[in-house]
């Protein structure tokens, strides 16, 4: 099947653009980038068509061989990675198309597409990798690409430091991931998925106390927290909005940040046997969802709102994973990729149309001026708010329902978060598209002449429309049984999470798995009514959010300010994101900077290392200052030394000979 072609194609594009793009015309750069990315998408589709029997793996070449431990360049494709693969290549391709229009006026056009293709390469490596190490390479690589793209406008200080922040925070997570890998090597002697999962599934579930699998699971979760912006490592994602909007859409909404979810889902065999780790995942997911949503309510920057929304939605996905509803998480991942990608792209289109303004308070009334953007944005907003029959409804509903089956607390917070989500999304919607235009007339919008608020070019609108279609219809593949659907998605992906658990060993103690299977097997018949009721509740929560935001931001626009003043302290805290950044600065950043500057730099580097070097250099200079007089420039003196040296050699040789 030549799976390796899929990641390699974007790499080729990146290499060509990176090496020669400087001399290419913009058209050619775009052609190369789109061509290779599209080729990867086409190949992925072909691979999807060819995939039969659930899974396929191929090994290209051995990579590391150390004793019995071996890591190969191997690629693995099953329904789980296929979903990811199609989302990444498909949405990625659309965003590539969009970027051509969005970035057309920017400097470093070729550089942007080089990075973008490079990101595709690493992301596809992450998705298709047949072992943890290859996945880790992709994991690190997307971090690199993310860093490069966040800091794309590297002359802007905030962009550069946002890139650094993302990179460093990710390092923390990667550290956990790496330790998890070491543990796997230590205890399983392999990093290949099938071997690791095979061995893990033969172990007993660790219900009480923390065992090996729990440790590995928690460490993996640390990694996932870093990559997928969960508490406590979410702080980089809002700042990452400094990057160009297509980057936010592709990396920080649709694909990269979901890598953590993918990884947890991929490692389900480990998590299923570590209930404590699963609980942690669920709690973190829930808390993140709620926490980010509350922050999102107060944000005024359109992209920041979306960023917190992303964090919140990612929390949903982790909640799904945490309640062992992996396929629901992946389902939400897919629909989220559609509507969140669309939201970002549409937001980009809005920003583009009014000349780079991102503050929602300076927007308004754009409905008429940019109708296509408005309508696609509307589709996406309804999707994320969870209105049927939009895509987000099905996936979110699925998650909430499965969460309820584990604990009502999860469900309650989930529903409240859904209400908040609907509220702040419609707040964004109303502030942007309704009412009066509050900003000043955009200044001639860069260089390309056409001043005034204007619709984006067609090359940007076409991806918007396609994604809008997907946001509406993308959820229909997973209509649950209670609503008269067959939940095809669950059937499609689900087997991955069961098939990977081999029949051998330890069936008696697989509580979670049994529970899940029970739920699946019996749920359509026994709980259909209950489920419908819960569906109704969540839909009404979303409706409530819509009405509230309409009330506050369309009807009584002076009310929000008054409310803010009423709960002044709380509002301030939320507006400042609960002072988490400041807390981190005090707790971690400042001690680190102080420690490294006072102890490491002043103390060790200056005092020990530099001093050693300086002193030895001074000593060498002093010594050579005295013996340099030997080098008098007089040939005969040199000859004298040579003669003396020769005499010394003769003495030595004779001494040896005599002895």
């Amino acid at each position, binding site marked *: 099947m030549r799976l390796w072609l899929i990641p390699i194609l974007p790499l080729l594009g990146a290499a060509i653009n990176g090496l020669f793009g400087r001399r290419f015309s913009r058209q050619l750069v775009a052609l190369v980038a789109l061509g290779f990315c599209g080729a990867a998408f086409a190949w992925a589709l072909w691979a999807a068509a060819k995939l039969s029997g659930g899974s396929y793996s191929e090994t290209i070449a051995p990579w590391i061989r150390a004793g019995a431990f071996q890591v190969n360049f191997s690629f693995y494709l099953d329904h789980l990675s296929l979903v990811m693969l199609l989302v990444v290549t498909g949405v990625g391709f659309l965003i590539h198309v969009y970027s051509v229009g969005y970035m057309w006026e920017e400097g470093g056009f070729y550089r942007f597409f080089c990075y973008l293709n490079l990101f595709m390469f690493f992301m596809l490596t992450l998705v298709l990798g047949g072992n943890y190490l290859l996945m880790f390479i992709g994991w690190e690589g997307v971090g690199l690409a993310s860093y490069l793209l966040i800091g794309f406008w590297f002359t802007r200080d905030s962009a550069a430091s946002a890139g650094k922040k993302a990179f460093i925070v990710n390092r923390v997570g990667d550290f956990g991931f790496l330790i998890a890998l070491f543990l796997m090597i230590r205890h399983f002697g392999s990093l290949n998925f099938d071997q690791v999962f095979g061995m893990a599934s033969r172990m007993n579930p660790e219900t009480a106390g923390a065992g090996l699998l729990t440790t590995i699971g928690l460490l993996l979760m640390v990694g996932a927290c870093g990559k997928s912006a969960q508490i406590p490592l979410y702080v980089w994602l809002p700042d990452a909005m400094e990057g160009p909007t297509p980057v936010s859409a592709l990396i920080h909404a649709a694909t990269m940040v979901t890598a953590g979810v993918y990884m947890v889902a991929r490692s389900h065999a480990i998590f299923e046997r570590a209930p404590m780790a699963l609980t942690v995942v669920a709690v973190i997911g829930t808390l993140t969802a709620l926490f980010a949503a509350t922050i999102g309510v107060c944000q005024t920057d359109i992209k920041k709102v979306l960023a917190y929304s992303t964090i919140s939605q990612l929390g949903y996905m982790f909640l799904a994973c945490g309640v062992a509803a992996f396929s629901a998480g992946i389902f939400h991942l897919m629909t989220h990729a559609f509507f969140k990608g669309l939201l970002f792209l549409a937001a980009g289109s809005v920003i583009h149309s009014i000349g780079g303004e991102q503050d929602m308070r300076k927007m308004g009334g754009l409905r008429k001026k940019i109708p296509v953007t408005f309508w696609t944005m509307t589709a996406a907003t309804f999707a994320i708010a969870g209105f049927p029959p939009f895509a987000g409804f099905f996936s979110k509903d699925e998650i909430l329902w499965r969460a309820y089956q584990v604990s009502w607390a999860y469900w309650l917070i989930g529903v409240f978060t859904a209400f908040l989500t609907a509220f702040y999304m419609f707040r964004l919607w109303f502030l942007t598209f309704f009412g009066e235009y509050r900003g000043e007339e955009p200044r001639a919008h860069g260089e390309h002449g056409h001043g005034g608020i204007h619709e984006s070019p067609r090359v940007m609108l076409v991806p918007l429309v396609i994604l809008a279609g997907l946001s509406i219809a993308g959820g229909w593949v997973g209509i649950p049984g209670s609503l008269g659907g067959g939940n095809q998605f669950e059937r499609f992906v689900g087997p991955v999470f069961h098939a990977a658990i081999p029949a051998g060993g330890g069936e008696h103690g697989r509580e979670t798995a049994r529970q899940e299977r029970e739920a699946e097997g019996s749920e359509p018949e026994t709980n259909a009514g209950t489920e419908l009721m819960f569906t109704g509740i969540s839909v009404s929560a979303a409706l409530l959010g819509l009405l509230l935001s309409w009330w506050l931001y369309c009807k009584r626009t002076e009310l929000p300010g008054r409310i803010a003043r009423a709960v002044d302290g709380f509002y301030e805290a939320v507006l400042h994101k609960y002072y988490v950044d400041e807390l981190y600065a005090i707790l971690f950043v400042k001690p680190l900077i102080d420690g490294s500057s006072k102890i490491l730099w002043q103390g060790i580097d200056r005092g020990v290392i530099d001093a050693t070097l300086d002193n030895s250099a001074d000593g060498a200079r002093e010594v050579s200052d005295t013996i340099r007089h030997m080098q008098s*420039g*007089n*040939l*005969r003196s040199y000859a*004298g030394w040579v003669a003396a040296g020769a005499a010394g050699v003769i003495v030595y040789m004779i001494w040896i000979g005599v002895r």
Partner: protein
Amino acid sequence: MVPLSYYLVLSGILFACGVTGFLIKRNLITIFMSIELMLNGVNLSFVAFAAHWHALSGQVFVFFVMVVAAAESAVGLAIIIAVFRTRETLNVDQVNLLKL
């Protein structure tokens, strides 16, 4: 019949004369000649050892030494001419600018 050591002693004397010449002579050309003298001393021991061990390679070595000496003297004398042109002296004690 001459013992081998006689040849070696002669060769050693020539070599020592060469070294001494290098040390005590001030004229660049004479110093250069001292080097040739050393080479000749070594050549003699080569030939003597060749006869002693019945190996012609010693004589071939002498041949190579001569070729190298010829090349060396060509370049060396050219350098001496160049030095004389710029410094207008052949006294090695006055050609001592190359130092720290």
